[in-house]
Each structure stands twice: as structure tokens, then as C-alpha cells.
């Protein structure tokens, strides 16, 4: 039996015949803009926009939008232009596709929130406590839904909650004019949404589809770098962390891009398939890396043919990355590299090879084959995505689910924030109480959508306190001297630009939240109107209201289900147990892609703690990744047929471990895995198995041994409750 016949059971079907090679390009990274993907003629669509210009362009456009809304609001003498200004900062996003997508949902959310607010005013305006409790409950429900729904509907829910507060509280204070208040607020909010969407889309739009293509190309570059590092026998932890979030990031961009470009809508299944191939290639590289590390630690001699195969594969991957060969050429060369690897079946017959060495060698060889096969599949998926004529693709189901417990805590925080501030307002009879209550709802609902919100809110509170003096100087001293809209814009523009510039740094949650909170404070305290009344006492009162609202939000984020590493680990353990239970359930048969995206999305909160460089955070992250790999092997085992007996016993033990996790059950599961691997090795040694049974036995050996290893590395993560 030739090496080619002992194919990796997870390999895709026969690869297409090799095509002629393309001439080498100067750039080592494939540039999607030069491939055959049909595009509009470049110029105003922003294709010349570099990624380091994006924060500057976003800041300029947001400033322009903000000033435009104020100009329109002053011209038409709208009631409270500050809500239009605030809405600009809430809606604005660096990429234009997201603005459109969010705007549609926000308008729907605004109308829903306003309708609910008017209903509450009609029912409870005479009884303030009941009104505030029902309003708090509504905001809590909307915040819960915004956290649980992982789609653009989340933005609709956030806006629905706080537009109810924005309309409801002034409406309840003046029920006779509630409808006019509602009309005014809807006008101001809609003005903010429409102007921001128009400016973002018309002036140097930063295409989400373009960002998506760049992200896909960057992911390819990172993946090839990582694969080359692993094939050299090394590792790159920072690259690994980056790669793991790529599938979910690309999926997030895809959801926006389908609003923007028709071609992207047609390619969504190709993109999903690319994402699945990417995750599989990355997972294979990780498993190979761990096996090689274990091999070196065992001080074992290297596997014959391994370095030659790795060298051939590295050259092939480099050539593909520099576009010297196509995906078909890559597949062919990786197939040739596989031929250098030893045959496990031959090793089985060698009595001088111990069971331990046979197991280690089988695992290295199997991992190498998997890396080669999955990389070839990834290359093919990558080129099909960028091809000019997308062919029909099997629909790949992805799952990005929310954690209902986390969402419930977010809802509870929003309820408590509003009630606490409302109690203070009623008890103190504070004139700025309505502002504080509204802003507490706005702040907690908005912060709930961000990572590390608690930490950032505390920083935001301090920053707003420190910013009070400069804001006073700008609003009460400089602006009061301004004559005409031009001078007004001249004074306001630098502040707005700075806030928007900070918000553009999406990779730094602290900067984003600080920029947003300061813009919120500036808009609220400024109280800009066509004929602004400059009232220093009013400014101080409003400042107190804003600071109190943000501080209450910060305290609640720190006290009520704080986003600590332990909370993230518990949340991940819950999701992992659920996903693994589905993987072991023969009836449900969860597809691999769905399992992977569920687990990767669940890993995201753990990844956000890596920035703290805490050793526990790194350990939790590594354990999470190991569980993801264990799940992949479980699904592979579930598909195998010759291990039915082992699977039944293992399935029962795993189900028991996942429903009632404890150390003893974990140890039993690991022992069963080791036993199943030993049984498979014994079967191979007997020499009585046929060709397909041999392949299945090799696969089973590798899978059960990997499961044992990965559960040993990460099993404690499953025990966290």
C-alpha cells in the first residue's frame, strides 16, 4: 500500500489537476485587489485609502456629521440639538457598511422605543415610581436582548431601550406635551442617524467589503507565517492569539459587507467555507506544534522523512504565498511532500519499535498529513473566494450564540443603574435628575456592548472629571464669545475631532470608551442650540449628572457580575460543556464548522484578558484552545465507524463529565481514551486489519491519544463552575 493510499481520512476529495504556474509577483502577500474579483472602477470608493488613514478619515467625517446636524438643527430650530449630536457619536463607525446596517436597525429601534415610552407615559405618568420601574424593566429587557442577539438586531435593541428613556422621562414630566416631545426626539435622533449615514457613505467611504478582503488577505499571510513557523518546529504565541479570533472577525465583517456590495452577498457561502477551511488549517497547525513539542520533551529521535516533508511543504507554502503557484499547484506539491512521510502500517510490523514510539510517530505523521491536507483545502477555498465566477457552494452552518447568563447580568445592571439614579433623583429632588437618569440608561446600555467595559468606565469617569475644566472653558468662555455658526464650528471642531479620533481605535477599548464618554459629556453639558443660554450653574449641575451616571455605571460593572478573568473562564466552561455535549451526542451530529465558531466566539472574552499579560489569563486561554482541539477530535471520533464500542463507552463517560464535571470523571475519561488508543495500536500490530480498517485504526489511535493529551492540558477548564 503506498503512502498516497493511506490518505488522511479528513482530507478533502481528489485535488484538481495542476495548472500552469503564474509568474512571481513582487509582493509576498496576495493582493486581492489585483485578482479577478469584479470591482467598480476605483477612485471615490476609497480603494486608495490606507488603513493608517482610517482613524483620521473617521474623525474628520464624524466631526463633519456632528457639525452638519447642528447646522440643520439650528436652521430648523429643533428643540434639543444635543440629541442629534449625541446620536452621531453613537452611530458613527469607521466602516461605511456598518453605518448603513446599524442605521436601519436603529431607526426601527428608535420608533419602537418611542412607542413604548408613549405607552408608559399614557399608563403611568401619574405614578412616578411605577413609571420608573416599568421603564427600567423595559431598558433591562432591551439590554438583555442586545447582548443575547449577536447580530445587527442588537443595535436596534440598545437604541430602543435608551430612546424610551430619552422620550419617556421628559414625556412623563410633561404628559400634555409627550407626543410633541416624542416627535422632537425622533426628529433629532433620525437627523443624527441619516446625516451620519450619508456623510459616511458619500465622502471617502471606507468599504467594509474592501476591509473584508484585506482582512482575508492578512489572515492568509498570518496563517502561512504560522504554518511555516510550526513546520520549522517553532511556535508564535502572539500570532496564535491573533489567528484564533480571525474567523469570528471575518464573519462580523461579512455580516456588514452583505449590506454594502451585491457581489459580497453572492459570495457569503464561499466566505463561510473559507472561514471553515482557515479554522481547520490553523487547528491542524496547532496540534502539530503540540505534538512536536511533546516529541522534543520526550527526547525522541525525529521521525524519518519528517524534515524532508516539512521542507517540501514549507517551500510549497512560500511559493503559494508569493503567488508563484496556484492553489492547485500547492495541493500537488503538498501531496508530494506527504509521500516523504513513513508508512505507519510498515512501522507497526517492526518489533523493535515500542508501542510508545509507534504512537508518537503515528501522531506526528497524522498531524503532518492533516496540516498538508487542510492547507491545500484552505488554498483552494481562498482562490475560489477571489475567483470571478463563484460556483454553487454547500451551505456551511455557522453558529455565533450569545450567553444568556451574561446577557441577563447586563440587563440587571441597566435596571439597577436607572433605579439607583432615579431613587437619588426623587430623594434629592435634584433638577438635573432627569438628565442623570437618562444618561445612566444610555451609558450602561452602550457599555454593555463593549469588552472590558467596567475597567473602561472607571477610566472614563476619571477622564470626564478631569475634562470638566477644559469643557467649561470651551463652552462657557470660548463658545459664549462665538458669533455665528462658523465660529461655533471652529471652537467645537477640535473637541469633536479628538473624541472621534479616540473612538476610531477599535483595538483599544479604553480609547474607544473614553472618546465616546467625553463626547457624551460634551454634548450633554453644552446644551447647544441656535441661541444657546450660557449658564455656568446649569453646566455644573449637568456635569454632576453626567459624572454620576457614568460613575454608577462603572460601579455596577465592577460589582454586578464583573467582567473578571474568573467570570470569563466560567462562561467559557459553560459554553464549552454545552458544545462538547452536542459533539458527543450521536443524535445531534453537530457540524465541525458550527462547533468551531461556537467555541471561538466563546474564547473571545478570554482573549480580551490576554492584553493584561496575566499568567492566569494566558493559562486560561491555552486551556480554552486545547478544549477546542479536543472537540475537533471528538467530532472526528464520532464520525469513525470501527471504534463504535469505544465510542459508546466514551460517549457515556463524557456525557457524565460534561453534566456533572469533577476530577474523577475527567480521570476516567482520560483513562478510557488511553485504553482506546492502546486497543487501536494492538489492532494495528496484529496485522489482521484490511486497508480501510487500518486507516480507521490509525485515525482512532491519533484521535484518542490527542483527546487524552488535550483533556490533560485543558480538562481543568471544564471543571470550572
Amino acid at each position, binding site marked *: 500500500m503506498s503512502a498516497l493510499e493511506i490518505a488522511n481520512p479528513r482530507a478533502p476529495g481528489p485535488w484538481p489537476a495542476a495548472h500552469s504556474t503564474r509568474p512571481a509577483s513582487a509582493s509576498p502577500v496576495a493582493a486581492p485587489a489585483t485578482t479577478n474579483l469584479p470591482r*467598480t472602477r476605483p477612485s471615490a470608493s476609497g480603494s486608495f485609502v490606507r488603513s493608517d488613514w482610517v482613524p483620521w478619515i473617521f474623525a474628520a467625517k464624524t466631526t463633519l456629521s456632528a457639525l452638519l446636524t447642528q447646522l440643520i438643527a439650528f436652521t430648523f430650530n429643533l428643540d434639543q440639538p444635543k440629541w442629534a449630536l449625541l446620536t452621531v457619536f453613537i452611530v458613527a463607525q469607521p466602516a461605511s457598511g456598518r453605518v448603513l446596517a446599524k442605521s436601519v436597525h436603529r431607526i426601527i429601534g428608535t420608533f419602537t422605543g418611542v412607542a413604548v415610552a408613549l405607552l408608559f407615559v399614557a399608563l403611568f405618568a401619574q405614578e412616578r415610581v411605577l413609571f420608573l420601574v416599568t421603564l427600567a424593566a423595559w431598558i433591562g429587557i432591551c439590554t438583555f436582548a442586545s447582548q443575547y442577539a449577536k447580530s445587527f438586531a442588537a443595535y436596534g435593541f440598545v437604541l430602543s431601550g435608551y430612546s424610551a428613556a430619552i422620550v419617556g422621562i421628559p414625556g412623563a414630566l410633561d404628559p400634555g406635551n409627550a407626543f410633541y416631545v416624542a416627535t422632537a426626539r425622533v426628529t433629532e435622533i433620525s437627523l443624527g442617524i441619516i446625516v451620519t449615514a450619508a456623510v459616511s457613505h458619500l465622502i471617502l467611504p471606507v468599504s467594509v467589503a474592501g476591509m473584508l478582503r484585506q482582512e482575508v488577505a492578512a489572515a492568509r499571510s498570518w496563517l502561512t507565517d504560522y504554518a511555516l513557523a510550526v513546520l520549522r518546529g517553532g511556535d508564535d504565541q502572539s500570532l496564535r492569539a491573533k489567528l484564533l479570533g480571525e474567523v469570528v472577525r471575518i464573519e462580523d465583517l461579512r455580516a456588514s459587507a452583505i449590506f454594502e456590495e451585491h457581489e459580497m452577498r453572492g459570495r457569503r457561502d464561499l466566505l463561510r467555507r473559507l472561514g471553515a477551511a482557515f479554522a481547520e488549517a490553523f487547528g491542524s497547525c496547532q496540534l502539530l506544534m503540540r505534538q512536536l513539542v511533546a516529541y522534543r520533551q520526550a527526547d525522541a529521535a525525529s521521525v524519518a522523512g519528517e524534515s524532508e516533508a516539512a521542507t517540501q511543504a514549507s517551500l510549497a507554502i512560500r511559493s503559494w504565498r508569493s503567488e508563484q503557484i496556484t492553489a492547485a499547484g500547492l495541493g500537488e506539491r503538498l501531496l508530494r511532500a506527504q509521500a516523504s512521510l513513513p508508512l505507519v502500517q510498515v512501522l507497526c510490523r517492526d518489533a523493535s519499535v515500542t508501542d510508545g514510539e509507534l504512537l508518537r510517530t503515528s501522531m506526528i505523521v497524522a498531524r503532518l498529513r492533516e496540516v498538508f491536507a487542510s492547507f491545500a483545502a484552505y488554498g483552494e477555498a481562498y482562490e475560489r473566494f477571489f475567483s470571478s465566477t463563484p460556483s454553487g457552494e454547500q451551505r456551511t452552518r455557522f453558529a455565533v450564540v450569545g450567553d444568556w447568563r451574561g446577557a441577563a447580568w447586563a440587563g440587571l445592571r441597566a435596571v439597577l443603574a436607572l433605579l439607583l439614579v432615579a431613587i437619588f433623583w426623587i430623594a434629592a429632588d435634584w433638577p438635573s435628575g432627569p438628565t442623570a437618569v437618562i444618561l445612566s440608561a444610555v451609558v450602561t446600555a452602550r457599555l454593555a456592548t463593549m469588552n472590558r467595559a467596567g475597567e473602561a468606565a472607571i477610566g472614563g469617569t476619571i477622564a470626564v472629571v478631569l475634562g470638566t475644566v477644559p469643557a467649561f472653558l470651551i463652552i462657557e468662555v470660548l463658545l459664549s464669545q462665538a458669533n455665528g455658526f462658523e465660529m461655533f464650528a471652529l471652537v467645537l471642531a477640535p473637541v469633536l475631532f479628538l473624541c472621534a479620533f479616540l473612538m476610531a481605535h477599535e483595538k483599544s477599548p479604553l480609547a474607544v470608551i473614553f472618546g465616546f464618554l467625553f463626547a457624551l459629556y460634551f454634548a450633554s453639558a453644552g446644551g447647544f442650540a441656535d441661541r444657546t443660554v450660557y449658564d455656568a450653574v446649569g453646566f455644573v449641575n449637568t456635569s454632576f449628572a453626567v459624572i454620576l451616571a457614568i460613575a454608577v455605571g462603572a460601579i455596577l460593572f465592577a460589582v454586578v457580575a464583573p467582567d473578571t478573568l474568573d467570570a470569563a473562564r466560567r462562561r467559557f466552561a459553560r459554553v464549552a460543556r454545552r458544545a462538547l455535549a452536542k459533539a458527543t451526542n450521536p443524535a445531534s451530529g453537530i457540524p465541525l464548522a458550527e462547533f468551531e465558531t461556537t467555541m471561538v466566539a466563546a474564547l473571545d472574552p478570554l482573549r480580551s484578558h490576554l492584553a493584561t499579560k496575566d499568567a492566569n489569563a494566558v493559562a486560561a486561554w491555552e486551556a480554552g484552545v486545547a478544549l477546542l482541539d479536543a472537540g475537533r477530535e471528538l467530532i472526528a471520533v464520532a464520525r469513525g465507524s470501527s471504534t463504535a464500542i469505544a465510542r459508546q463507552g466514551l460517549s457515556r463517560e463524557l456525557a457524565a463529565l460534561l453534566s456533572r464535571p469533577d476530577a474523577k470523571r475527567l480521570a476516567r475519561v482520560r483513562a478510557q481514551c488511553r485504553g482506546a488508543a492502546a486497543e487501536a495500536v494492538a489492532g494495528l500490530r496484529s496485522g489482521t486489519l484490511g486497508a480501510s480498517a487500518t486507516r480507521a485504526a490509525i485515525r482512532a489511535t491519533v484521535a484518542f491519544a490527542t483527546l487524552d493529551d488535550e483533556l490533560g492540558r485543558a480538562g481543568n477548564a471544564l471543571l470550572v463552575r
Partner: protein
Amino acid sequence: MLRETSVMGALVPTLLLYFIAAVPLFFVLDRSIARLGVYRLFWHPPLARFSLFVCLFCALSLLS
């Protein structure tokens, strides 16, 4: 054109009603045009789409 229209007793700006009516019309037209690949002929497709919407909105307002 009436400045305000009564909708179930509430006076609503007529322009708002035309705006709301223009949105679904725009979506239908926009999808058809995008499917035919017409936007590829424009230098600035987002501006073209925005202009289409403005034309639809103004046409509804002027023709009423």
C-alpha cells in the same frame, strides 16, 4: 402638497410619509439595479444610490 397629514388623529409632517414611502421603493429599485450590475458603470456608486433615493423622494413629493 399638504404640510401636515392627519394619521389617526395625530398630525404628521407629510414629507415624513413620503420619506417612509420612498424607502421601500428605493430598496426594490436598488436591488434590481445592483443585480444588473449597473452600479459598476458609475464613478461613485454610493453617491449614485443616494441620488436615486433623493430623486425618488422628491418625485413622490412633487407628484402628490
